[in-house]
């Protein structure tokens, strides 16, 4: 069957959006199918996101916008996948598209309809805490920004009359006649990213959710905190809109609980989001807010999580109380909430809170379980999509991939990472049809306007009545005509409508305009559209400027039309002044080397090499040791109990035999030259004065891994029966007597992790220990296994290992870091003395073997970091560009990372990350040419004094000093156009195209004239 170069992505949350963008960038046409009226998913509802606390919407919205206007992403909203026929490479997908009752081509989202709609409805986006109308946009930044009618609440649909919206819509966009459509799409692969729903807290009756007004879910609390939420970010409680003084979080609501909800798994994100919510609530509160988190284990296992937790404890003063809460009682008068718990000393304590937040878990909605069944994708016992550790984004049906929370509960970085991995896997099966279905637009040749005096055309928009009803548009237009260099002025009803666009094009050509100013709405959404029009009219798109007289004028000064009109005139004047100084900017294309370098031959590195090769790219794999495999060589089983040696040997063989992969062992990188698309790296192969090899490559993936650290406590090194995790695995594999014959085994957790010198969690140890305990007890049920731990962090499905370990009789003792267990070597015997902090009693065990969960630490990555100009974090792990949204990218273009070099993680996550890195790298490599230029900085060498400040401030290493002339040079391929270097240069040697000093000064000057 013929392969099809298109992919369907089901689900428009962050995972789906990322997958869609990656695929579209690397040459595939994408259908993004979203059930809601707009894409964005749960992330769009969040306030801030851990662990960086950046604003969720700020970082999400640019991606949504990009998706919305990508030529090769077709968004189908209000749509669901009904069935999938065919097979890998060629599927027929049936999509059910529900009617919007608003013509997407006509709606300009002016909002008049919603203003006029008489029907108020609970707003699900605000979790029902606010109201919206029956005609609505999901949220203000929604993509696509088009209204939709909620049929179930629309008066017309329910009672047969009203149609107010239709009456007032200037654009005639309302269409009550729209019908459900069934669309058949032909695609090569499918990616499932339908996300999750939160556990319905009503099911756990003893917390009173649904009965007590001030018991809310964490998701509701996100909305309460959000500046765009129901209370505009004022922290108040629902019952009386009073500011709370004490808030409690109850963890694991609907997680790790088989009694009330049959969810034995851990939801993996709740600990972190609860900490986040507590810290942010404190920031939002003017008074001294008391926050208490009631938990079983604090699972802050991810990158930067532990520090986040520590800061919350130490700097923000969030209280953490290890106690499972059995019920919440409402005080009838105050509607405050009473919580009873036992403290460290086993005392029962009662506290009242003004609000209680339930940290609800993540689950797969019923509808998805049904859909999975219909399309033949199997789910695991918890209802999440089942995958293998070695193919962590492949579903049971070939050609269908999965990412995001549907694959298992997870946070945003992990979802994004998997999305790139799924995109990469989908692309790998379709490599030969890459680029066959993508659309490209052709434009007329650009008119050369050099030397022409400015001829500015100004188009003032009424935006229906959005602008015109407040701002006196004719007056503004008349005024614009008096401004210098303006040769043409026009007024439009809707500047963005297709017919107006056509007319503008004609006018630009007819009047020989060489600069265009549109006074209308925001450039953030509409600039690309108008720039497009300019291009179509043969003008360089940078000869365009906008004045935002709607969002900044008519909409926000509705009650002072005169002032608004004056302001509109000034905004137009400023835009016209700047426009006169606009210059056509050049975007040039650079060729690139379509191959990659992978550094580090562990599983991550090999997976990356393999995947790149599968996508058709040449790869050089560099390993500093004499063997491939890395840490996986010491491992026996994955956490899903798959056999690792078999997998590893297969992988090594396939890498070594792959004609597109060149492996260098005993090799290291010595020198690096160039930049994205055109790197030149020099390797030294062999020991001592080894042979030098130069590799040209377009991208590089760093997978240098990490190693187990050498413990310096618990008698390590003093007795052969005290071993590390990795040693234990090796001994067990070899059938060493120390393991085989051990009757009593003690595990000590967090050895060197979560300590001041390594303030992070090594992530794999707890699960490793629980899994080992289970195996030890399965081998010999008479054994005694003891685990000394601080928190058991068997996140997600790994909780099952913890559960089974307990069931099989493993005894867990919680210790406090102030009071660690002690290992005593006496008379040839081993003894561990500790204290159980849950029971408050001393414990002593006399094991035959002690296994220390030694921390995982990075290698010395500094030389590589310097060579590729990428940063490390305080602990020496590589630091990605953006913890949330670019988890495998570096700020420096063309350099990616995966595996343990990023942070400790299990095998399956390393593999997924490696695939993700490939997905991102391919987005660069597949383009064949690099677009550079546009809004970028440039340097004037005659003014530069070589002080180097620009180099120090550029986050993208895009500007550097030429080592010979000692003057700065901007690499247009790397520059992102932020202008930080420009404003930092005292010598005035740098300028930013499109936002130059003369242009900005001219706008300032024009304000006062």
């Amino acid at each position, binding site marked *: 069957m013929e392969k099809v170069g298109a992919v369907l992505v089901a689900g428009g949350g962050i995972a789906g959006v990322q997958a869609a963008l990656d695929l579209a960038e690397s040459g595939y046409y994408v259908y993004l199918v979203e059930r809601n009226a707009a894409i964005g998913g749960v992330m769009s509802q969040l306030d801030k996101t851990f662990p960086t606390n950046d604003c969720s919407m700020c970082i999400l919205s640019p991606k949504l916008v990009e998706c919305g206007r990508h030529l090769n992403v077709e968004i189908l909203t209000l749509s669901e996948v009904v069935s999938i026929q065919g097979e890998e490479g060629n599927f027929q997908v049936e999509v059910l598209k529900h009617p919007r009752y608003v013509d997407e081509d006509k709606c300009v989202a002016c909002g008049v309809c919603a203003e006029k709609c008489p029907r108020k409805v609970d707003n699900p986006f605000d979790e029902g805490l606010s109201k919206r109308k029956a005609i609505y946009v999901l949220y203000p930044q929604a993509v696509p920004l088009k209204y939709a009618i909620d049929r179930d609440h629309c008066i017309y649909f329910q009672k047969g009359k009203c149609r107010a919206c239709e009456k007032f819509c200037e654009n005639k966009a309302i269409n009550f006649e729209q019908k459900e459509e069934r669309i058949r799409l032909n695609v090569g692969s499918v990616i499932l990213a339908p996300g999750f729903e939160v556990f319905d807290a009503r099911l756990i009756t003893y917390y009173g959710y649904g009965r007590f007004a001030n018991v809310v879910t964490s998701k509701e609390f996100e909305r309460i905190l959000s500046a765009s939420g129901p209370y505009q970010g004022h922290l108040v409680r629902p019952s009386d809109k009073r500011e709370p003084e004490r808030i409690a979080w109850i963890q694991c609501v609907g997680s790790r609980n088989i009694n009330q909800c049959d969810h034995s798994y851990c939801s993996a994100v709740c600990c972190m989001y609860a900490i986040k919510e507590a810290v942010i609530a404190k920031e939002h509160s003017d008074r001294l807010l008391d926050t208490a988190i009631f938990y079983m284990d604090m699972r802050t296992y991810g990158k930067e999580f532990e520090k986040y937790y520590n800061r919350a404890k130490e700097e923000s003063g969030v209280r953490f109380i290890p106690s499972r809460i059995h019920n919440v009682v409402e005080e009838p008068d105050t509607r405050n909430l009473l919580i009873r718990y036992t403290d460290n000393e086993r005392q029962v304590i009662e506290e009242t809170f003004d609000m209680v937040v339930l940290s609800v878990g993540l689950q797969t909605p019923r509808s998805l379980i049904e859909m999975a069944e219909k399309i033949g994708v199997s789910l695991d016992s918890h209802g999440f999509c089942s995958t293998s550790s070695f193919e962590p984004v492949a579903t049971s049906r070939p050609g269908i991939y999965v990412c995001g929370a549907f694959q298992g509960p997870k946070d945003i970085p992990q979802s994004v990472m998997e999305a790139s991995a799924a995109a990469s896997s989908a692309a790998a099966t379709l490599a030969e049809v890459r680029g066959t279905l993508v659309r490209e637009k052709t434009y007329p040749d650009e008119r050369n306007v050099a030397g022409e005096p400015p001829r500015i055309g100004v188009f003032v928009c009424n935006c229906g009545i959005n602008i015109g009803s407040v701002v006196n548009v004719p007056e503004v237009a008349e005024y614009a005509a*008096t401004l*210098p260099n303006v040769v043409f002025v026009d007024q439009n009803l809707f500047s963005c409508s297709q017919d107006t666009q056509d007319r503008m094009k004609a006018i630009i050509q007819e009047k020989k305009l060489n600069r265009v100013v549109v006074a209308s709405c925001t450039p953030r959404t509409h600039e690309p559209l108008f720039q497009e029009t300019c291009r179509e009219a043969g003008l360089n798109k940078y000869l365009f400027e906008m004045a935002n007289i709607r969002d900044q004028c008519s909409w926000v000064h509705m009650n002072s039309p005169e002032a608004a009109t004056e302001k509109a005139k000034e905004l137009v004047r400023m835009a016209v002044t700047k426009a006169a100084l606009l210059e056509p900017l050049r975007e040039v294309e650079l060729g690139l080397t379509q191959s990659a370098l992978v550094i580090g031959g562990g599983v991550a590195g090999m997976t990356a090499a393999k995947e790149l090769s599968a996508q058709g790219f040449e790869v050089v794999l560099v390993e500093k040791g004499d063997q491939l495999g890395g840490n996986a060589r010491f491992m026996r089983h994955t956490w899903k109990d798959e056999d690792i040696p078999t997998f590893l040997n297969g992988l090594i063989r396939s890498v070594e035999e792959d004609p597109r992969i060149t492996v260098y062992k005993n090799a290291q990188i010595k020198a690096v030259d160039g930049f994205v698309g055109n790197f030149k790296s020099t390797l030294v192969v062999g020991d001592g004065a080894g042979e030098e090899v130069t590799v040209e490559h377009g991208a590089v993936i760093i997978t240098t891994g990490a190693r187990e650290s050498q413990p310096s406590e618990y008698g390590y090194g003093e007795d052969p029966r005290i071993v590390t995790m990795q040693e234990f695995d090796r001994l067990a594999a070899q059938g060493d007597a120390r393991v085989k014959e051990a009757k009593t085994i003690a595990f000590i957790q967090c050895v060197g992790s979560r300590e001041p010198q390594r303030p992070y969690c090594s992530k794999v140890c707890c699960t490793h220990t629980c899994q080992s305990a289970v195996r030890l007890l399965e081998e010999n049920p008479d054994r005694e296994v003891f685990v000394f731990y601080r928190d058991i962090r068997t996140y997600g499905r790994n909780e099952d290992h913890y559960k089974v370990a307990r069931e099989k009789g493993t005894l867990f003792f919680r210790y406090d870091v102030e009071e660690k267990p002690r290992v005593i070597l006496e008379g040839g015997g081993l003894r561990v003395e500790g204290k159980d902090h849950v029971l408050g009693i001393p414990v002593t065990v006399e094991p035959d073997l002690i296994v220390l969960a030694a921390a995982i630490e990075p290698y010395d990555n500094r030389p590589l970091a310097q060579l590729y100009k990428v940063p490390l974090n305080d602990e020496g792990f590589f630091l990605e560009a953006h913890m949330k949204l670019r988890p495998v990218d570096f700020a420096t273009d063309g350099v990616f990372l995966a595996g343990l070099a990023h942070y400790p993680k299990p095998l399956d996550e390393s593999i997924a990350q490696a695939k993700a890195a490939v997905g991102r790298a391919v987005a660069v490599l597949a383009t064949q040419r690099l677009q550079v230029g546009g809004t970028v900085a440039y340097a004037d060498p*005659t003014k530069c004094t070589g002080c180097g400040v620009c180099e120090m401030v550029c986050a993208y290493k895009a500007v550097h000093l030429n080592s010979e002339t000692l003057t700065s040079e901007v690499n247009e391929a790397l520059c992102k156009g932020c202008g930080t270097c420009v404003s930092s240069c005292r010598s005035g040697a740098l300028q930013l195209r499109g936002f130059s000093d003369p242009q900005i000064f001219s706008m300032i000057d024009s304000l*006062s*004239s």
Partner: protein
Amino acid sequence: MSARRVGREALKGFITGLMEDGRTVWGPQEFQGSVRFRPLKKNGTPVLDVPNATLSPKEVVFPPSEWMFLFSTDPGREDAFVLKEVPQEGPEQVILGIRPCDARAFQILDRVFLEQGAHEDPYYRSKRDRTLLIGLGCNTPCSTCFCHWTGGGPFHTEGLDVLMTDLGDVYLLEPVTERGRALLDALQLDEAGADEVERGKHIAEEARASMGEAKDPRRIKEKDLMALFGSPFWERAHEACVKCGVCTYLCPTCSCFDIQDEVRGACGFRGRNWDTCMFALTTLHASGHNPRPTGKERFRQRFMHKLKYFQDDFGDVMCVGCGRCVQYCPANIDIREIIEALSA
């Protein structure tokens, strides 16, 4: 006898007299830690007991910044970008306490602004014509003064309208020009006694004698221009100089200016500001080319202009030996050493 006298305590009255008829009287005054020529207020007194002012009174006739034309930039107006003269009239004025070196410098400025062929400068002309100079002889010339090298002296009267000599209790006022005489006459001052005139002479002689021997920069005129220009001497001489504007801005004879347009809102002006050959920008062409690319060329220009080209053109050096540049140069560049070196 036409010499007059003003008792020390009567100085205020004398100045009040000068101010009658609406005259502005400029005199040296303390100005934020330095001494500058400023218009005296009613009943104000100049500080005459200190060595020469930090800046010469050149700023009275050739201000550091002055507007020449005004224009509108409003394209809606018919006269947009049409230059309109800034009116130049102003009151009669007297500079009281100008030193002989600075007065001689006015004559040098006259040559540049008034006598260079057809290019008479109306802005300078207007101010110069309504200005009278009442000079104060230098009883104790400073170690940095070398007016006698350049053809002047501590009691030279060239360029003055009236010469004033500090006799201690009394100021002796001797008219030099007709305008000076007329002024003194109009003020009806007491006649000076013959002994006072005598004392004045004596003081003048002593002052001159205290200055020691003069070196003569006029020998430089005879030197070959190209040889001076190409001399390796400049290489080292300029090294310490930081190329600031101190020497030239403080110099009473320097007359470079730079014409600039400045727009504020819908109006603009064309004005001129002091400039100096020491700044790279002065000779920078719009093309980016600079005929005096490095400090050496600029440094050489300053001295060649003063000591050679000006002599060639006008017969005199463009320096009156006031010593300001010597005294205030942050790098201790001493023009006297340059004169010696060039004339050697």
